């Protein structure tokens, strides 16, 4: 499956874009390992993964049309 990932904050400095698209992704563990291969700088980045606007804490299967976002530490306020 093809997954569009939206990126925020300092993570956009790594990719130079607000979104990246990865191919052949089944779940979030799979997404992370593919991402780390394409963009090694992510290995040392702090971020959490949100699937459909909910932060996940364990491997999560990705369905068609789901929204995946990578969120670096928040700094609002």
């Amino acid at each position, binding site marked *: 499956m093809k997954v569009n990932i939206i990126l*925020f904050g300092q993570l956009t400095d790594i990719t130079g874009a607000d979104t990246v698209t990865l191919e052949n992704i089944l779940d979030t563990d799979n997404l992370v390992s593919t991402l780390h291969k394409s963009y090694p700088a992510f290995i040392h980045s702090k971020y959490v993964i949100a699937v459909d606007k909910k932060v996940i804490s364990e491997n999560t299967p990705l369905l068609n049309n789901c929204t995946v976002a990578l969120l670096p530490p928040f700094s*609002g*306020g």
Partner: protein
Amino acid sequence: MTDRKPKNIFVAGPIAPAFIGESIGHHASKTNIGGHSIFLGQVRADMINDQPVKAIEYSTYEAMALEKMHEIREAIFSKYALTCMHVYHSLGRVGAGEISLFVFTSSAHRKAAMDACAETVERIKSELPVWGKELFDNESYQWKENK
């Protein structure tokens, strides 16, 4: 638990002091209110590597932030006897000395408003997907980290 709809909390640029005054004035007809608690976040001109922060540029994951803020609001209303709560957060550029966050809670007796305001601010800082980019004079920047 009421069914409040997710409200937009984001405003473009700084929050004007006059707007805060007007928001306060709108509560004069709510004569069951005895206390208002307000927190304002202001952009500091911190020195970082000998350069002062000129402004912070805020961005958000808006769909998630509004959903999260709705969840925070419902939790605060169910925990404290509030009359009302208003939250505004800046997006885009906010200069040093300008206001980027406005949290406003009201209640019949002061304690509920004060405790609710403090807890809402903590939850906004730790749970809302918002990012601040600290901008310097020489076009350089640094991503802010909340302590």
